[in-house]
């Protein structure tokens, strides 16, 4: 253990796992309750377009990707709320268009871009101090938002129609939640990459949902599962030749499968 902590890159990786392990399960709780899983996958893939623009223009790709991710999330919410096009259709269009833009721009690049591969497939071991600061700021902002509006967000997830009738500012709160999902996607991409980040947004909440009959235990389970996946994946990748992003997602998937099996067994036990 002390050997692991002796390396600076491992210290930063552990801190990144802690920050993302708290951030993703917090958002995952609402993603699952509001049935926004497809939105998470859509935003992460759309962000590829923003990342490619950043790399092509020399601007920080994390910044351009974040603008794309938040913009996509909020545009999806706004367009679907106009009632003309369903949310799934809007996400499907953004998803494919963002990916196409990213692929088109990347195909024009000459030379090797190590940053691009880090963002596509994730590399927690290469996380920088500046990126850690960004993660900490995003975590703090999202935690403040969630703590201030927890009961209202929960009510909107349960029954949006009733929340509107009660006079709650449903539109701004929903947009705030979508922006939080966009930011979470972007800061988590460094860990597991564009391709796998949706798993961090869905699996902790989905597993906790299976195991809980009240929202308090669901929130707690979601955090425990998210942290277990992030730290577990990091340790597995240290000892075995498996990329950390893939290891994190595989551990989360194994926890989900285990939870489904245990629940199935308990429900059928005489």
């Amino acid at each position, binding site marked *: 253990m002390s050997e692991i902590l002796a390396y600076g890159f491992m210290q930063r990786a552990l801190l990144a796992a802690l920050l993302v392990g708290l951030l993703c399960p917090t958002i995952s709780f609402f993603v699952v*309750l509001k*049935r926004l899983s497809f939105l998470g996958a859509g935003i992460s893939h759309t962000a590829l377009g923003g990342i490619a623009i950043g790399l092509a223009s020399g601007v920080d790709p994390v910044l351009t990707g974040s603008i794309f991710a938040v913009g996509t999330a909020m545009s999806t919410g706004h367009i679907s709320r106009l*009632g003309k096009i369903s949310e799934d259709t809007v996400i499907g269009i953004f998803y494919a268009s963002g990916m196409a833009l990213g692929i088109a721009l990347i195909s024009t690049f000459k030379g090797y871009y190590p940053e691009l591969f880090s963002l596509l497939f994730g590399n927690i071991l290469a996380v920088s101090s500046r990126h850690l600061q960004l993660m900490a700021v995003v975590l703090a902002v999202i935690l403040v938002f969630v703590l*201030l*509006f927890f*009961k*209202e967000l*929960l*009510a909107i*997830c*349960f*029954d*949006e*129609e*009733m*929340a*509107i*009738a*009660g*006079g*709650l*500012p449903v539109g701004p709160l929903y947009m705030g939640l979508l922006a939080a999902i966009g930011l979470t996607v972007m800061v988590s991409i460094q860990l597991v990459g564009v391709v796998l980040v949706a798993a961090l947004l869905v699996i902790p909440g989905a597993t906790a*949902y299976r195991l*809980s*009959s*009240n*929202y308090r*235990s*669901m929130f707690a389970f979601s955090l425990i599962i998210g942290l277990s996946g992030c730290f577990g994946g990091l340790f597995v990748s240290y000892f075995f030749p498996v990329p950390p992003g893939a290891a994190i997602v595989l551990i989360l998937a194994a926890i989900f499968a285990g939870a489904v099996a245990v629940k199935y067994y308990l429900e059928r036990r005489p």
Partner: protein
Amino acid sequence: MNEVIAAHNLAVALGGKTVLEDITFTAGSGELTGVIGPNGAGKTTLLRAILGLVPLQEGSLSVFGISGRRLKDIRPRIGYMPQRQSFERRFPLSSADVVATGLLSPQTIFRRIRGREDQVRKALRAVGMEGYYHRPFQGLSGGEQQRVLLARALSRRPKLLLLDEPNTGLDFPAQQSFVKLLRELKDKEGLAIILVSHDLASIAPAADKLLCINRTMHIHGHPAEVLRSPYLDEAYRCQFDFLTTGGDSERCWH
């Protein structure tokens, strides 16, 4: 009896298309008004207009004497129970948590809800569900869930209750029990109740008045009068036949 709702030649358009027109009716305290009509008749839109969620295209609508844009200010005085399809039935909330969502308003943002437990217990007691305070909502039967959702609508002690298809998915005894509970609440609390349903058989025996609509108003009056009216057949675009004859005529689907 105080007049709670007064609508005169009310018309509503959604996306440029008129979905309701020429709706005129009144509803008073201690009165249960059944809004009937086939699917897509505009019944839910009428409730949304009363809540101030959709603007009027024409005519006038006053609720507790208030009209226009100020309708949204009186939402806390209105208990609302949306259609069952609009929520996730396995949502991890207890019955008390569900009722407490009805206490949320712009005034409770950034604040704890004062007297939350008391208000929730009173609302659950009013619908005969006090013993279900800690029970997971997802584990309740359809009829029990409807009672908890009714408690949520009652949590702010409203004077007007708007119920959108509350009997959908319930078996006949559960429907009877729910309607009986509504009548008790109406008599005890002096509530004005607007009950929307496409199921004529479940609503007609309980209502003091019926309002039959299908995009426009076809008839409004005492249930016996409405059930005998040819306008009912016109609204549903089918023929009703007499099922039994007694003091009052009753009819059912043909």
